């Protein structure tokens, strides 16, 4: 396979397929992932090609899905679990936090838990409640978990393959609002590391740190700002636990300003951690306080209001203006 242009959803599907092909211990499991191919069709065709023993339609019970995936991992399998929507992960939260995250440490390293939990997350799709949330901070706070989120089809492909090969539990957050966007995927290329951030666009006046669905917004903001003569650098964090602060630091040391943006509420979100760490690391380089642009401390609103709630282009540019005004 050479470089191919494909939708984000197809990239995820290709990564699952490649992992199922390369390692007979890889399993795909979740609600409706079999015949239906998942509600987003991410697992389309996989059960047909790999059988019901490896692409498993599970009972409708998230704790059961993750709990049994833990047991399968203990038996030597590498389950890739699909949680149907962000808001449905909470029945499994107990198993993820009290069991999955801690078991390797509790066994003093004698067992490994290579479980990937794929969660379509984020808003902007006009859904009913519990279908648009961004719970990443609830996972990054837990030692023992790794949390990553791709923003492009290429990252979708490679980061999922890397997550499946990782011997630790990985929460794999897929920006569902980007599922149908296309991009180039080079399945024979050399991928970036799973936990490195990437400068998605170079600039000199201010750094915007974004991840998942807000990377596109940040790139749009950079384009709009350019027309006003401002040069924004966009850093795609890609990994939320751990976070590649070195890349952010290098950027901010050059630009002197940082705005962090995510769909999740800003209060005690990933942006707060980035702000604190970068302030500590770049104190003498900063020309302005690190600002955050994100969701409010409100339940995710009804769909008719989500454009106001989400950090869109205008709100992000407003944040950029405020940071530049210092």
């Amino acid at each position, binding site marked *: 396979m050479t470089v191919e242009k494909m939708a984000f959803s197809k990239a995820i599907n290709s990564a699952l397929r490649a992992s199922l092909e390369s390692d007979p211990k890889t399993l795909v499991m979740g609600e409706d992932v079999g015949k239906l191919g998942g509600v987003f069709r991410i697992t389309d065709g996989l059960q047909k090609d790999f059988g019901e*023993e490896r692409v498993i339609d*599970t*009972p409708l*019970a998230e*704790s*059961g899905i*993750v*709990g*049994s*995936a*833990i*047991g*399968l*991992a*203990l*038996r*030597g*399998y590498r389950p890739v679990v699909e949680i149907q929507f962000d808001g449905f992960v909470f*029945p499994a939260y*107990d*198993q993820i936090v*009290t*069991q999955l995250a*801690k*078991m*390797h*440490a*509790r*066994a*003093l*390293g*004698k*067992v*490994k*838990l290579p479980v990937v939990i794929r969660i379509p997350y984020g808003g902007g799709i006009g859904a009913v409640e519990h279908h648009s949330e961004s719970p990443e901070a609830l996972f990054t706070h837990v*030692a*023992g978990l*790794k949390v990553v989120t791709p923003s492009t089809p290429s990252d979708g492909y490679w980061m999922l393959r890397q997550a499946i090969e*990782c*011997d*630790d539990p990985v929460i794999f957050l897929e920006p569902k609002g980007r599922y149908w966007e296309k991009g180039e995927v080079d399945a024979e290329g050399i991928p970036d590391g799973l*936990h490195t951030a990437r400068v998605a666009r170079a600039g000199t006046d201010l750094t915007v740190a974004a991840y998942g669905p807000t990377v596109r917004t940040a790139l749009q903001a950079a384009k709009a700002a350019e027309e006003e003569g401002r040069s924004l650098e966009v850093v795609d964090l890609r990994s939320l*636990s*751990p*976070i*590649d602060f070195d890349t952010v630091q290098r950027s901010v040391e050059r630009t002197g300003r940082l705005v962090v943006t995510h769909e999740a509420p800003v209060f005690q979100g990933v942006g707060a951690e980035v702000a604190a760490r970068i302030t500590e690391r770049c104190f003498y380089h900063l020309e302005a306080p690190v600002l955050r642009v994100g969701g409010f401390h409100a339940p995710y609103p009804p769909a008719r209001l989500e454009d106001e709630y989400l950090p869109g282009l205008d709100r992000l540019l407003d944040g950029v203006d405020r940071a530049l005004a210092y």
Partner: protein
Amino acid sequence: MTVESTSRDTARSTTTQESTARQPVGRTQARTAAGKSTAGKTTAGKSTSGKAKPTARKSAAGNATANGAANGKPPAKKATTRKPAASGTAAKPAARKPAAKKPAAGKSPARGTAARTKPADGPEMVQLLTPEGERVEHPDYPLTVSHEELRGLYRDMVLSRRFDAEATALQRQGELGLWPSMLGQEAAQIGSGRALRADDYVFPTYREHGVAWCRGVDPTQLLGMFRGVNHGGWDPNSNNFHLYTIVIGSQTLHAAGYAMGVAKDGGDAAVMAYFGDGASSQGDVAEAFTFAAVYQAPVVFFCQNNQWAISEPTERQTRVPLYQRAQGYGFPGLRVDGNDVLAVLATTRAAAEQTRSGQGPVLIEAFTYRMGAHTTSDDPTRYRRQEELESWEARDPILRLRRHLDREGAADEAFHSELEAESETLARRVREAIRTMPDPDPIAMFDHIYADGHTLVDEERAEFAGYLASFADHEGN
């Protein structure tokens, strides 16, 4: 007043258990009645006779699956097994029951004894040893045990109790932060533990010290987490004995998943999911039942109903006997006298064999009693009556086997005195191990958080090491 109401609850609990457990009796009696017409009289005296028959019929159906397991034979057909549970039309399985159960009639003395000892035991409970140590037969669970095996089981029970007592003492002496005693549950644990093969896999709660003993886990390893030096720490794969699980019921899902893996591998190991009466209320246990059932995974769900979830009686967890839960999920369930090591051994063996052969999970409810406190932090006098404790002490599982050994002449004085000495040696070894167990290096808290590393952990480890080292510098100067 609190105490009073609690004891009332307890009384009610017993009644509930009793009445439901008795339904099957009704069935037996109804049958006997047909032949002898005496049963009617017995029940009539209790003024329940009017109800006896209809209920009996219903429960007979309800128990069809349980008896299927009891016969050690596959439920005739999957569909048949599931039907009664799903549709509630119990007539057919019920109809095939009497034939299967015929031998039971010949066994009434044993049942009589069991019933006499304690109403809540319920005659449906599989029993091979009466509390007096008399061997009785059960048609579905034939068991031949040599004197040597009897002595082996006795030794296991005595040594694991001695270990347990030592751990309690070590907590009192401040060597352990906490200890959850298994006192009273030795038969349930040794009987089930000894029923397993080396390649079977066990997912314990935090009270399975006797099972751990059977699996060959060094008892001193169990103490680390209760001393506060680790959170488990033994290698689960070296004895196929997973880490203790503190969160109630979580491990049953791990067992279901592990068993799904066994089935995928084409293996024939059985996976044991231990849990308690309290855990039976957890959603994870319900989900584990569902997963194991729909994937026909080789799990033996082994519920030690020790009557108390800290201060809450079983009545606060369920309105039906726990073993009957299995029916709703389409797999067999049975209740065994959890203080009868032979009955536990026989039923667990049968369940493990059945599950190995690809017929899906089995639920065993071992009816037993937590003779001690929930943990060393608990005070059971606040919620349960002394008489209840005493009634169970009279059915002490070790005492029961001892009586049997004596009846059989299976162990001489030399055996007992050697065992006594061995117990003391074990206790001494445990004491010494605990007292010399080192605290972990502070830096160890950063170990094994991730298998593939994590930069934040590396950073914090280095910072903390530097901080610690700064004290060393000062001291050095």
